[in-house]
């Protein structure tokens, strides 16, 4: 029972972190989508970065095909994340693995790094992920409705929400070991360079920067083993 409660708290932690981001999404969606479409997008896509990207491209009147490809490439990082989650759940049935995999996000994945071994099973992951999911869907709609009464400045300021969430997730990890900081900063630099050289499509730049900097972490690990 105690472990379930811990998982529920983890879910609430992500959910509360999502709350302002979801509200920001709802506000941003207001001029582009109907209330139902906003709900449906959060309900079916369930990805902060992807949904903001889709809105950005919709307002730039990109083609549907371009939006789908961009979101697909941006989301392919979840392939790597889902791999790790599925590894945690390797003893569960395929159906349970599929269910949990559908709810993998950057945030729930980042949190899974701190989940103890005895909680690495279907029921605990389900509690964490579904709690966060409910927050995301509900507060997207709340944000949509709140958008009507909010000023332009608040709408602009809420653009920082997603980044504040990412930073807040990264800081505790850095506290545990500085090697995570090195990997994260390397990821930032690589991503910046890949975007600046304007040669690689932006979605692919994300994946490349992510995998290369994680590989550098592997090098760090190998070196500390030898000492």
């Amino acid at each position, binding site marked *: 029972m105690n472990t379930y409660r811990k998982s529920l708290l983890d879910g609430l932690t*992500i959910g*509360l*972190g999502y*709350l*302002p981001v979801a509200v*920001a999404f709802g506000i941003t969606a207001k001029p582009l*989508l109907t209330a139902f*479409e906003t709900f*449906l*997008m959060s309900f*079916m*896509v*369930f990805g902060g970065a*992807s949904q903001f990207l*889709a809105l950005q491209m919709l307002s730039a009147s990109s083609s*549907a095909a371009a939006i*789908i*490809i961009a979101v697909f490439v941006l*989301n392919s*990082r*979840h392939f*790597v*994340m*889902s791999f790790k*989650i*599925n590894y945690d*759940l*390797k003893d569960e049935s395929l159906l349970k*693995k599929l269910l949990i*995999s*559908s709810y993998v996000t*950057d945030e729930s*994945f*980042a949190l899974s790094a701190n989940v103890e071994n005895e909680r690495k099973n279907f029921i605990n992951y389900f509690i964490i992920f579904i709690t966060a999911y409910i927050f995301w869907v509900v507060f997207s709609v709340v944000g949509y409705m709140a958008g009507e009464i909010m000023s332009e*400045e608040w709408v*602009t*300021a809420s653009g*920082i929400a997603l*980044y*504040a969430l*990412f*930073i*807040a*997730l*990264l*800081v505790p*990890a850095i506290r545990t070991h500085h090697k*995570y900081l090195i*990997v*994260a*900063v390397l*990821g*930032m630099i690589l*991503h910046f360079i890949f975007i600046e050289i304007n040669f690689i499509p932006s979605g692919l730049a994300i994946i490349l*920067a*992510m995998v290369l*900097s*994680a*590989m550098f972490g592997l090098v760090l*690990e190998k070196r500390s083993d030898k000492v």
Partner: protein
Amino acid sequence: MIMLIFALFLATIITRILPAFFVGGLQFPQWLITLLNYIPYAALGVLIFPGLLTAVETPVQGILGGLFAMILAIFRVPLFFVVFGTIIFVYFLI
């Protein structure tokens, strides 16, 4: 629009569920597990920057907002208050 959302659903769900079919009893080498452990931190870094520069109106506002969020997080402020506090901070910047 509904069709587009449904296509986006497929575009996001495929990459998420695909690994579930691979993982079944097969054993991973240690280096791959270590690599997978580093992915979240690499991902967070990549997602934060340079996107932060275009999050608000000017790059400076984005960076100040990011620094503010970092300070709150360093002082162990709960996630919700970090995000909410940073929005309020940025509101007063612009």
